[in-house]
């Protein structure tokens, strides 16, 4: 058996919604105060459990969007049209509401400044959320690790954290932020404009020789395409960490 430390049991705690921000028309960041929160690493997630008046319960996992900050845990949730939990979180939850959470969960798809870099972050849609936690951890720790953040979204109004990313890309040395828009582009768009492919990674991601750790998160076809392209370019599969989510859930 590995390890000697007693694992902490993950118990459900009642968290309070202390604030929220609409990130786009379909996505919202929610700040939860979780009593007794033990802290977490960027990239980890929490489970949320909702209970209806008739006793029906539903659970879903959501990536944490920001590094550890005492009892505060931020999640960013994108609405899934026919979803069961995400519409409630994005549209119904109000300040002061209480929901059950447990976590943090996951220990593989994580990054902290001591793990070094370079750090190649590639996210599709709301798959950028755990990557944003890593970028925010890098910036708030004033780490010198070089980071390239590449997000893929259908259109500009679907890009999460756009203004914060613009600020980080402009002001923080060693961080490059790039967006690619796959369906529609505004006039004068000067970013990338197709799905992430091997050519794009060759031109804009860290080279194989720089031995980056790559984190890829998004819907399954996105992650399959990007991680396969990274491996085809010569990146060590052991340095390509992935997290996938299907079209269902939420």
């Amino acid at each position, binding site marked *: 058996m590995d390890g000697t430390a007693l694992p902490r049991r993950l118990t459900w705690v009642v968290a309070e919604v202390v604030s929220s921000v609409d990130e786009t028309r379909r996505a919202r960041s929610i700040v939860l105060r979780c009593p007794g929160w033990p802290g977490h690493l960027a990239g980890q997630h929490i489970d949320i459990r909702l209970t209806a008046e008739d006793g*029906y319960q539903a659970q879903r996992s959501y990536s944490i969007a920001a590094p550890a900050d005492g009892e505060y845990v931020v999640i960013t949730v994108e609405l899934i049209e026919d979803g069961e939990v995400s519409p409630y979180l994005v549209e119904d939850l109000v300040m002061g509401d209480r929901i059950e959470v447990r976590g943090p969960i996951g220990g593989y798809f994580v990054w902290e400044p001591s793990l070094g870099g370079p750090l190649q972050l590639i996210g599709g849609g709301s798959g950028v959320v755990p990557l944003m936690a890593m970028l925010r951890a890098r910036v708030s720790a004033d780490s010198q690790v070089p980071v390239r953040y590449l997000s893929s979204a259908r259109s500009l109004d679907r890009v999460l954290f756009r203004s914060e990313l613009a600020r980080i890309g402009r002001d923080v040395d060693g961080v490059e932020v790039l967006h690619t828009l796959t369906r529609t582009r505004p006039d004068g768009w000067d970013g990338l404009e197709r799905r992430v492919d091997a050519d794009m990674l060759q031109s804009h991601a860290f080279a194989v020789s720089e031995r980056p750790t790559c984190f890829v998160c998004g819907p399954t076809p996105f992650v399959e395409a990007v991680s396969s392209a990274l*491996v085809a370019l010569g990146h060590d599969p052991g340095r390509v960490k992935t997290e*996938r989510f299907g079209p*269902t859930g939420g």
Partner: protein
Amino acid sequence: MALINRGFRRRNRVDAPPDRVPPGQYVTADFPVLSAGPTPRVRLEEWSLSVSTAAGQETRWSWEELSSLPSETITVDIHCVTKWSKLDTVWQGVSVDDLVGDMDDPGAFVLARSYGGYTTNLPTSDITGGKAWVAFGYDGEPLAAEHGGPARLLVPHLYLWKSAKWVNELQFSNSDRRGFWESYGYHDYGDPWMEQRYRGD
């Protein structure tokens, strides 16, 4: 008594008999994918499956040899720890019993090892006695790489991370060594009906 989230209600998307859906799960008609790294691509001519016992006895099957064993069609419900369940999935595979049948007492535990480095641990009694298969077909087709092809373990009575994709070794021993997700705090056993998601559940 759990907290009530006012205004939250069930939105049934797939009708399912409640006795087939473990606690905390929802039923999906899709087949989501979950894995920690890039999908390994293994050519059938290079594929092999090794089975080794605690006593050090080892048997290896090539793809051709595995394909020549009697296979079964298995119709089962599967449950992923990420909360989705999928009912009546149809697989083609070889019973693990047929791989270990000639070995006397392989060992009390097994560590399944996969192409790409994934591992997961199970009690031997959970993969023998008609409870587990090495599956290479899904829904009448060869098993797709993203779902674990050429072949994966199928242990439908436990959460799906125990059904190691891209399996290439069943390493029996008399000590229980944690696999990949188990060492990150996921449950050692993973019974969906007991909701054993994380260690301590």
